């Protein structure tokens, strides 16, 4: 049975609603990316309904792909979706602290998605300035197709999304601080809850700033202010200064504001995945994390440092080079807690090699896949963190490879792991293991095949957002075989996701009924549903020998009567 009542404020229903929204967004985003990939290698292809896609159309695809994926998949699913679904149970609460606020934030997110998708259908179409929307391209309506109404719709949509996210962060923080059950101290919370705590703080700050930036940009576009529009712009052959009262703004202001949001945003996307990884590794290796306190400290460190590194997206923007040095150093510093986490996970894997569950179930496979992608994508981080290397690699496919490996694949693999893991909580059934394994292996191969060669394209100097390799950009024509391979791999990867969709659809109705605690987990969301009052007295990841077998010690297994 499904515990989903779409219009209720029950936290599980809201969580499932968020996940369904993210599913729609990821399907659409993947479709857009397939169109993008096909366009790069066959720019003059005549599509059935759209005709030949012009380069501006490619940019519109890029913009919407990025926006959908970053906001509506990588923020909506790991934080909003899974936290709503699981957080209250994991801390022993019956519901969120402010359940109707939680529901409101979902409906605002849904409204935001609807407004964003409307941008496809207005005259001019979707905006073309990338998900980062640098002015003056994004600040002036006449600069390109889709930059008028389409851009306004984007801004309104993201403004609503910011509001929804801030409200959801408020709800999460209040819940974690006030609704923990008896005995659940901060240091006894599951690591997923810690990651949601840090993520919620980041969301509170980051999305407020994005909201302010969006308001300022809307003001520039509609109220004649000049926060971001510089002097001397020539638009369509005309001096823009003659049309605009006093443009004397600075695009750098937008960059600072946007990236002060944008960098914590990617940590918002990845921190819950990290918390989940630790939890799942502990679960399937039947052992606690190497050091719980260490994992908490690294989570806090990543969250804190993540607020200080935004300038590494701006090394070539004309920023003060000394600022570049500072940002480069702090960015390299953030590699320390991240590597600490990875080493901790590897240590868990090594120490748990005797006690691990065998054969590895699908959530564990995806967790290992997360590890693999996180290392692969993360290793190129310190490379890009150095201003002098970034001077060459900025806005090339090297960067595309980096963030896709780490956000798209690692983040998304963690989402897959979470779906396969918590499916019994959502539906009472298990997903099909066979299909799951096929999904995993095909996705792994497809993802590496798609994103790894992009490093080479980047090193060869191919810039991002280029709609074609031939024509006026003939110096890139030698990369056509590489890009063709990438496109074929991308189509393969996209098709492999059909297995996941089929698995989902089939398992919702016909999956094997799940036993009470199918994964033998220790955290509270798997506790028997009639355990209403329980007092916690030990950590969330304990296993005890029972004969020859490691049995999970449920976090609330030692029960005491209330006074």
């Amino acid at each position, binding site marked *: 049975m499904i515990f989903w009542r779409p219009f209720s404020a029950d936290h599980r229903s809201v969580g499932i609603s968020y996940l369904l929204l993210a599913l729609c967004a990821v399907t659409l985003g993947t479709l857009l990316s397939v169109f993008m990939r096909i366009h790069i290698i066959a720019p003059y292809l005549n599509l059935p309904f759209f005709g030949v896609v012009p380069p501006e159309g490619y940019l519109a695809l890029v913009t919407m792909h990025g926006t959908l994926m970053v906001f509506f998949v990588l923020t909506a699913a790991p934080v909003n979706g899974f936290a709503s679904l699981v957080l209250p149970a994991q801390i022993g609460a019956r519901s969120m602290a402010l359940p109707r606020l939680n529901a409101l934030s979902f409906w605002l997110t849904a409204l935001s998605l609807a407004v964003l998708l409307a941008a496809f259908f207005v005259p001019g179409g979707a905006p073309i300035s990338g998900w980062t929307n640098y002015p003056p391209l994004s600040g002036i309506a006449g600069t390109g197709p889709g930059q008028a109404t389409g851009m306004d719709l984007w801004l309104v949509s993201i403004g609503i999304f910011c509001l929804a996210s801030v409200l959801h962060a408020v709800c999460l*923080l209040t819940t974690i601080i006030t609704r923990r059950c008896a005995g659940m*101290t901060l240091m006894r919370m599951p690591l997923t809850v810690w990651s949601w705590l840090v993520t919620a703080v980041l969301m509170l*700050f980051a999305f*407020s700033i994005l909201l*302010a930036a969006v*308001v300022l940009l809307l*003001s520039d576009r509609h*109220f004649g202010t000049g926060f971001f529009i510089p002097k001397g712009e020539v638009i369509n052959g005309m001096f823009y200064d003659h049309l605009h009262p006093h443009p004397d703004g600075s695009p750098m*202001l937008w960059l600072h504001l946007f990236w002060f949001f944008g960098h914590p945003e990617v940590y918002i996307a990845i921190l819950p995945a990290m918390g989940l990884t630790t939890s799942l590794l502990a679960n399937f290796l039947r052992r606690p994390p190497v050091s719980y306190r260490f994992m908490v400290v690294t989570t806090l460190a990543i969250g804190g440092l993540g607020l200080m590194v935004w300038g590494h997206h701006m090394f070539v923007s004309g920023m003060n080079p000394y600022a570049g040095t500072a940002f480069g150093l702090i960015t390299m510093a953030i590699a320390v807690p991240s590597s600490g986490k990875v080493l901790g996970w590897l240590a868990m894997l090594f120490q748990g090699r005797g006690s691990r569950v065998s054969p590895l179930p699908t959530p564990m496979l995806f967790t290992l896949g997360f590890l693999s992608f996180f290392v692969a994508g993360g290793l190129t981080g310190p490379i890009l963190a150095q201003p002098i290397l970034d001077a060459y690699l900025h806005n090339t496919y090297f960067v595309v490879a980096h963030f896709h490996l780490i956000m798209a694949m690692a983040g998304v693999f963690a989402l897959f792991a979470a779906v396969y893991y918590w499916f019994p909580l959502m539906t009472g059934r298990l997903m099909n293991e066979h299909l799951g394994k096929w999904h995993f292996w095909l996705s792994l191969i497809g993802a590496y095949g798609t994103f790894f060669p992009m490093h080479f394209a980047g090193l060869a100097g191919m810039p991002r957002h280029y709609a074609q390799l031939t024509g006026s950009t003939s110096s890139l024509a030698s990369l056509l075989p590489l890009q063709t391979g990438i496109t074929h791999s991308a189509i393969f990867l996209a098709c492999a996701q059909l297995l996941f969709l089929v698995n989902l659809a089939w398992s919702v109705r016909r999956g094997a009924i799940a036993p009470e605690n199918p994964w033998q987990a220790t955290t509270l969301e798997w506790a028997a549903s009639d355990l209403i009052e329980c007092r916690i*007295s030990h950590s969330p990841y304990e296993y005890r020998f029972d004969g020859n077998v490691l049995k999970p010690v449920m976090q609330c297994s030692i029960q005491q009567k209330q006074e």
Partner: protein
Amino acid sequence: MPATFTRSTTDIERKDTGIGGKPPVDRRPTGGGGGDDNWDHHPNGRRGPRELLSRYRLGLFFALAGDLVFFITLVSAFFVRQNAGHFDVRDNYVSDWHPLAIPPILWINTAVLLLSSLTMEMARRHLFHEIDVMEEWLGLGRPAVRRAAPWLIGTAVLGALFLTGQWMAWQQLASQGLFFATSQNSHFFYLVTATHGLHLLLGIIALAVALCALFLLRKVELRQIAVDCTAWYWHTMGAFWIFIFVLLTYFQ
């Protein structure tokens, strides 16, 4: 002290382990009242009837923190734009930042807003006055509500006065020829005062809702929460205004 309904604390022996570490896990089925009950000495009120109030206050605190970050972003744009300038035809650097004289009515508006914070606080305290709350809870009329309501109305009136004053300030600026888009400075002025004014309008609406809640809601606790959260929101908007006012007066 605000009125609370804490249950009488039973005799809870608190074992101080003395070693500053984690207390030993008590697996005896003692039935509570011994062992490590409340071993970290957290205040009992958290789990008691004040829980709902503290939860809503905490939620409001986080929401206001986000709002503060929003205002700080606008202010940072303000400081960045103070360096706006250009090079004229003779390569001289000409600053484009034209400080404007704030209309003097803003001083009166500030005083009005501070006064409204005072009246708001009076309303809030009346609703937490122990004896009155006890009488309401027992069903003996509504003395707390009757005492708080006029102060709430007064706060709303003062808030509306403030907004009218802001509008007049805008009119005065417009009569000097400084409109929203006239200069770097003027659009910041209008933007930040408009944003604050919008928040204050939301505050006045919240006051109206709280006033209705005082008469329509049945539980005393919920009435307290409605007025308390509105009060804290109102005080915060007042504090934001002081911040903005000082900025506009002395830091242009």
